[in-house]
């Protein structure tokens, strides 16, 4: 009876209505990041309603997203036969034609579009790029691209020293700071097939914090850094592999004293599966400390493994991360509160709120056990933040709270951090 009802229902329902149900299902699959299922649903919509304009446009866009501009061009050409005034489809047909190497046809399509709408900026720009031999999309021509960022901000930290015994507990360890960050560098290569990343990146980065209460309020521990970040990424079949190397010189009191050199190579592999991107990372952080700096302790190294799942639940991005780390003094002698094992996990969510305003939240728990003294502790961290973007700059604000609970009372503490600032971008 149920089967008969379904058959009668499908016979009595117009093809456009049947197609619309398939397209609604395609949207659900697309929102969950399952592009294969979305394509299957759109194809099913076209099988019952071959001239459905929404299905044709959806099929074309999904085909281009899957790297199949031939199929996209076929769908778009049919769409324009049915709806010759659809200038969005005409523009996308030009892109698809250029992607399959039909640059003359793409030029003719763009000329027809500009004739209908002489001020359509994206079409004019694409035509100019096509004429000059560049990538018609203008998104990535594959060469060297400079980028830079300048950040200015303020931070209020309730406990810059954390729980060091070097400052008596009666001393106020809170201070507001003025923060400056400058980043500059280049990227090279095309971002195709690399989840938006370019194959090579080289960045230089300088950070500095000064206290409005004077240098004494920094207790000689708030870092100023200068460093280099080099990163390479490549795709091997379904996997994206990345090698990341970071070299940082760390100073205190606004570069007046050098305390440590940090060298941190890491490698990771990621793979997209439906709405998930799984990433497995292994990394090392080696700290080479100045011998005459008493606060820094011995040279030591951290070995870290991490598994991460990044989910796109449009419009929300959710990240779940689980990691383990072992820290060892470099001289192979057991050091109190230097040698430890740590397991940590966090959940992070980012969501667009309205317009250019977005917000994020993070919750993290980390537990660690030290080899010496049988000391165990757990750290809880939560953070909330917001960002509002403009063309060349963005405003941001964050609040973070951390609580460390330790077997040793001196290491049990709370820390509140409030920060806000502006970042200027050149990219």
């Amino acid at each position: 009876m149920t089967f008969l009802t379904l058959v009668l229902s499908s016979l009595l329902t117009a093809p456009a209505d049947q197609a619309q149900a398939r397209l609604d299902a395609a949207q659900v699959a697309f929102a969950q990041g399952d592009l294969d299922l979305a394509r299957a649903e759109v194809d099913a919509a076209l099988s019952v309603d071959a001239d459905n304009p929404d299905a044709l446009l959806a099929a074309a866009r999904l085909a281009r997203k899957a790297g199949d501009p031939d199929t996209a061009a076929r769908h778009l050409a049919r769409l324009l036969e049915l709806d010759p005034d659809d200038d969005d489809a005409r523009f996308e047909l030009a892109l698809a034609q250029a992607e399959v190497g039909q640059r003359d046809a793409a030029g003719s399509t763009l000329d027809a579009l500009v004739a209908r709408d002489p001020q359509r900026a994206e079409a004019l720009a694409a035509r100019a790029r096509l004429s000059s031999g560049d990538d018609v999309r203008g998104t990535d021509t594959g060469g060297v691209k400079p980028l830079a960022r300048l950040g200015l901000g303020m931070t209020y930290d309730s406990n810059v020293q954390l729980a060091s015994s070097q400052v008596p507990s009666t001393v106020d360890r809170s201070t507001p700071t003025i923060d400056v960050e400058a980043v500059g560098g280049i990227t090279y290569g095309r971002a195709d097939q690399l989840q938006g990343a370019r194959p090579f990146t080289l960045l230089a980065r300088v950070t500095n914090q000064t206290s409005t209460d004077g240098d004494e309020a920094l207790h000689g521990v708030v870092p100023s850094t200068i460093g280099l970040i080099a990163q390479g990424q490549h795709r091997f079949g379904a996997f994206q592999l990345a090698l990341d190397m970071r070299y940082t010189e760390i100073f205190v009191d606004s570069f007046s004293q050098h305390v440590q050199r940090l060298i941190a190579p890491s490698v990771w592999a990621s793979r997209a599966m439906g709405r998930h991107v799984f990433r497995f990372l292994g990394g090392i952080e080696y700290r080479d400390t100045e011998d005459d700096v008493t606060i820094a302790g011995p040279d030591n190294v951290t070995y870290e493994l991490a598994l991460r799942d990044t989910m796109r639940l449009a419009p929300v991005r959710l990240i779940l991360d689980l990691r383990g780390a072992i820290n060892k003094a470099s001289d192979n002698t057991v050091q109190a509160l230097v040698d430890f094992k740590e397991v940590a996990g966090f959940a992070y969510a980012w969501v667009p709120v309205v317009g250019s305003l977005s917000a994020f939240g993070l919750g993290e728990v980390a537990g660690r056990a030290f080899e010496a003294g049988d000391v165990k502790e757990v750290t809880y961290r939560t953070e909330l933040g917001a960002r509002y973007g403009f063309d060349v700059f963005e405003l941001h604000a964050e609040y973070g709270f951390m609580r460390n609970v330790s077997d040793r009372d001196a290491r049990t503490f709370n820390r509140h951090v409030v920060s806000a600032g502006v970042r200027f971008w050149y990219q």
Partner: protein
Amino acid sequence: MNTLILITHLVLAQTPVTARVVQVIGKVELISGQAVAPLDRFGEVPMGTIIATGDDGRCSLRLPSGTLIRLGSNTRVEVASLTRGDPAAARKETIKVSVGRLWAKVTKLFGNDSRFEVQTDNAVAGVRGTAFFVETNGKQDQFVVDHGAISVNGAGGSLSLDGPGAAGGFHDGTLSPTNPLSAGALAAMRADVGGGVTNLLADTDPTGTTSREPFRDTLVGPDDPVDDLQPAARPTDSFGGDASITVRLIVPNL
């Protein structure tokens, strides 16, 4: 001779044309005078006719300029004015909404005489290349920007709405802004006028990613999800402060 050419050009520049139906879902009727007929996909809609959607009805209209109009269920609109020039972006188009919900993705206007307006009984929304919603019950109107900007004029004053989710309306005799809508609410409104696929079409950027997010992803450490985060300093660190590079600097004598 020159005068004759000019007159010819002016006539051509204001040619009455028809809109084209590109999608019909459920019950949708075309009303011309006393005649009522089902609306056919890929059929033509002349100026002065009325389109009415039923409880389960939705439809899309392509105007000659390239502008796309989507109508939700239980909506009644009149194609009040429809002339196109050369180029197609030079035109005068007016859609009058009596009741219901409408979404418009408007091709940019060309020339100073061009105009695209959506009228309700209380207000007129004028735009220059944008996408927006209009909803009315005949007494109260709501205007919501999908992307771009619109200006709304009515007896109660004028209103400028800029950016996705910006909203305002005609309530109690005056035009006033209302709380902006979230991305989720915009997605729901798109789905209401055209089915869920309108979100799929809106979410797939035809030119690909050009944002600064790839740079942001490069800048963060391999263990930080975003560089907006404050430093993930551990209690084993001596260093506090705003260094987004994770630093484990050990104090051995605690």
